[in-house]
């Protein structure tokens, strides 16, 4: 009996099944779907990090042209709080619960917090009327920085809390103090990450509507997690989930930003119900940029023998997660803590994470989900150790990688690494990149004003997040249908950010049913139609959703073959499905799939004897490589799958201007079995470039009152085509032994490697001043400060 993975060998780089629609300008995004007569909402947002609202007068705004209604918190007092997507139980004393509200009530606690909603017949009139709202604020003392948030006299950033600690985590393995005693060398360092953001090309957009006949609200929106959003809306509006329909049309990119939990998702529904008319909210770019994350400050130590064997690693970090809202972006630093010591075999580890609330905009999730930060810190520590020992950074990594034969292997946090071959990946990378040739070129250019830096970095990317208590979490479901006319339809709870996972799912189902993938329809993102699921997050679409579809397709195949056998009055043994035909044991086509389906549904007594109609099957998939019962240290392990990648980059640092030019980039990547290598490579390259941007250019800058300075894409600098070389990619495949198809998940890998390889290369170019690079992104001002620093290094 072949294994499931062998039976499903469908790896093929076919074009996207929906490609022609996409290249003709025809994908229909939320903003293309505004119903006739749709009203437009604009939001008055707080200009203060913290203030009491002394008075709020909307009368003038209400009287302005085209204005239908102006709403404040008072008008929404029948709404319940929006429940948190991740109802994290914390044992921190004085910490309150996370409460999501649509509009500020009496007090604002971050800049940008919505205070009033103007609804008008035109978007321009709605925005113009915002200026007519009269608000008197009494500014209150705010917590503006994580350095002051933990001071003894600090006020609490969250109204009603008695602490600024949102969560803590301590991870211990072995005895780090013993490692310090045994070590010949201990190298310490710091790394601070400035806030950055996902910045998809499509801003968030939500349309609420009200069906008076059915008395239901509907939300059509830019949503990664439609079922989670449905639950949040039903809870906040205090209605049954059956009275809410959530539709998630194709997304113009998301990268985590569009996960459930934006107050506007609920607000447009509340207003549509109130006004009995459709209401749309479309972000302006400055609002899309008000979604910070990644602000973390790390202090680490790495202890080793003089010949480079790493004995211990310690990292203590704080994360400024701003105000925590109903979305789960704030929880990303908890994941950061769990990835250490990544791909390295380090016996003694001590990790300490503190998540701190300040009066700044709530975090939104981002691709990488904290893992990119942990990986970058680990690689930074390895590089500093290599420099200290005067060892080649590739050689030092080779010496400390987990060996290919050592799997499964636990991380310090208890996450159970499934499989991999890190040493081979590193060897392949150095060949693909031309590591020796680059080092040679670097040595010839060392005295120049423009110096070359070479960076190396591993990324370990835990995937398939299945945290208990999150809604929903560790499962995905698919229904596969053979319709009476013979076409194949798949309904899945996973959604797509535009990555092409619908094509991968179609390929998997097509292989099971012996049909052309291009003929398979994959339906996603409609809570009235698709099974309950998480949507997309943590590379789960293929890993969990695709697997559920395979299981369902196999059940359906068995039904179809039974029906065919009934028609043929023959046993099912020997029958197979190929090229839309039922084939006998000699491979001769004896019936079309269409004939079987039509006959089964129209002549059921005979043809469907022994099976159930209609010809469809629903199956769910749950991962096995997780543990949700606390171990002896009280830890659970909620990622099932561990793709990894290793990256090399060459950059040129202009010592006069501090600018960095990326000269070359190569990556070797392993996500286990690939269904569509072309789509996987596309995802990986995009993720790497996102990492390059976050390492070199992207920063959400603020003034000293935490007012955002990056309001346009002129101030938040995304990578452009001329900023980049070709990204050269090689793949390996070590199938996961814990997954029935050998998948590990693709789509997120690359961001962490991109950041880490870039910082590694920049630090390398700084030479003897490399330790002074303690900040990400490595922008020209940061690098000029280091280059011009006259202090002895």
């Amino acid at each position: 009996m072949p294994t499931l993975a062998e039976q499903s060998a469908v790896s093929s780089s076919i074009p996207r099944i929906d490609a022609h629609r996409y290249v003709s300008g025809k994908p229909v995004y939320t903003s293309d779907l505004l119903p006739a007569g749709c009203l437009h909402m604009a939001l008055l947002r707080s200009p203060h990090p913290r203030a009491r609202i002394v008075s709020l007068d909307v009368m003038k705004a209400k009287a302005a042209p085209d204005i239908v209604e102006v709403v404040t918190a008072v008008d929404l007092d029948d709404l319940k709080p929006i429940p948190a997507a991740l109802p994290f139980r914390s044992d921190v004393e004085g910490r309150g619960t996370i409460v999501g509200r649509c509009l500020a009530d009496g007090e604002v606690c971050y800049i940008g917090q919505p205070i009033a909603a103007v609804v008008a017949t035109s978007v321009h009139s709605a925005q113009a009327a915002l200026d007519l709202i009269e608000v008197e604020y009494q500014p209150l003392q705010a917590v503006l920085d994580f350095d002051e948030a933990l001071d003894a006299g600090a006020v609490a950033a969250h109204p009603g809390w008695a602490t600024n600690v949102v969560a803590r985590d301590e991870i211990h393995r072995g005895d780090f103090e013993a490692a310090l005693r045994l070590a010949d060398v201990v190298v310490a360092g710091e790394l601070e990450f400035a806030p950055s953001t996902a910045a998809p090309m499509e801003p968030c957009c939500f349309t609420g509507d009200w069906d008076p006949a059915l008395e239901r609200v509907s939300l059509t929106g830019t949503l990664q997690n439609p079922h989670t959003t449905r639950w949040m809306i039903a809870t906040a509006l205090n209605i049954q989930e059956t009275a809410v329909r959530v539709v998630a049309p194709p997304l113009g990119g998301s990268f985590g930003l569009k996960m459930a939990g934006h107050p506007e998702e609920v607000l447009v529904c509340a207003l549509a119900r109130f006004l009995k008319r459709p209401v749309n909210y479309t972000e302006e770019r400055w609002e899309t940029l008000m979604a910070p994350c990644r602000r973390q400050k790390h202090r680490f130590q790495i202890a080793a023998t003089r010949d480079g064997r790493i004995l211990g690693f310690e990292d203590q970090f704080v994360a400024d997660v701003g105000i925590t809202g109903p979305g789960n972006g704030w929880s990303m630093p908890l994941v950061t803590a769990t990835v250490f010591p990544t791909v390295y075999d380090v016996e003694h580890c001590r990790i300490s994470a503190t998540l701190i609330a300040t009066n700044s905009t709530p975090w939104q999730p981002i691709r990488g989900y904290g893992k990119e930060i942990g990986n970058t810190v680990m690689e930074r520590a390895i590089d500093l150790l290599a420099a200290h020992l005067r060892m080649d950074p590739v050689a030092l990594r080779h010496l400390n990688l987990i060996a290919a034969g050592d799997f499964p292997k636990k991380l310090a946090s208890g996450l159970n690494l499934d499989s991999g071959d890190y040493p081979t990946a590193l060897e392949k990378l150095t060949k693909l990149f031309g590591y020796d040739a680059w080092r040679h070129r670097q040595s010839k250019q060392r005295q120049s004003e423009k110096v070359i830096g070479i960076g190396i970095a591993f990324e370990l990317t835990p995937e398939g997040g299945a945290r208990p208590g999150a809604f929903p979490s560790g499962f995905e479901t698919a229904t596969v249908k053979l319709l009476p006319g013979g076409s194949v339809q798949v309904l899945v709870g996973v959604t797509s950010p535009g990555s092409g996972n619908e094509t991968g799912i179609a390929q998997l189902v097509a292989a099971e049913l012996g049909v052309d993938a291009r003929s398979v329809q994959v339906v996603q993102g409609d809570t009235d139609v698709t099974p309950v699921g998480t949507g997309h997050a943590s590379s789960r679409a293929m890993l969990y959703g695709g697997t559920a579809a395979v299981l369902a397709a196999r059940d359906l195949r068995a039904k179809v073959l039974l029906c065919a056998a009934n028609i043929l009055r023959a046993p099912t043994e020997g029958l197979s499905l190929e090229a839309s035909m039922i084939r006998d044991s000699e491979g001769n086509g004896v019936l079309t799939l269409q004939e079987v389906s039509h006959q089964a549904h129209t002549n059921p007594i005979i043809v469907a004897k022994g099976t159930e109609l209609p010809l469809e099957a629903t199956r769910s998939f749950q991962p096995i490589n997780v543990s949700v019962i606390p171990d002896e240290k009280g830890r659970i392990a909620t990622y099932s799958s561990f793709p990894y990648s290793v990256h090399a980059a060459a950059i040129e640092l202009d010592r006069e201007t501090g600018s960095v030019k990326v000269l070359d980039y190569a990556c070797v990547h392993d996500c286990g079995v690939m269904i569509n290598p072309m789509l996987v490579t596309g995802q990986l390259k995009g993720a790497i470039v996102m990492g390059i941007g976050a390492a070199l250019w992207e920063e959400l800058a603020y003034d000293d009152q935490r007012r955002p300075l990056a309001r346009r894409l002129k101030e938040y600098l995304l990578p452009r085509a001329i900023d980049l070389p070709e990204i050269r990619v090689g793949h390996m495949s070590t199938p996961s032994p814990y997954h029935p198809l050998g998948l590990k998940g693709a789509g997120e890998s690359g961001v962490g490697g991109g950041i880490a390889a870039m910082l590694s290369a920049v630090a390398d170019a700084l030479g003897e001043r490399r330790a002074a690079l303690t900040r990400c992104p490595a922008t020209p001002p940061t690098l000029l400060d280091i280059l011009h620093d006259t202090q002895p290094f």
Partner: protein
Amino acid sequence: MRIAMKVNGVARDVEIDERMLLAEVLRGPLGLKGTRIGCLTGDCGACTILFNGELRKSCLMLAQAARDADVQTIEHCSTEIDVVREAFVEAHGFQCGFCTSGMILVAAELLNRDQEVSAADIRQAISGNLCRCTGYDNIVVSIQNALARNSDQRNKMSQDSPAG
């Protein structure tokens, strides 16, 4: 106010609010939703169109400036655009699709120029258009393939056409 312009080869006459941007009129009264709005500040290029044959960002123009102009959007049918579309399909030159309309029009304009173009030239040509998904490599390859196919077709046509 009313304005007349030629859009994708067809004479159109629309009633507009004089404050409206060309991008808003294309997507709204004219119903051509393939033109995308990503920033309204001319930074992302998702609203790129061909305006009298030249590339423009339609969020940086008032609609009334398009009076009597010849405007082409992603919905336009031309040999060049078809060649580019096919190349984007085969080389997976898109992911979420939001930047794709603009990228394809930039590529079609490159094909129209009928010049020798390097990969670096292509990167320069699309540098006014942001893509957050692909890292650009597949877009560059798609355009290279389209250029090669286009020049093959032109050569073939000139060989096939009767002399004199």
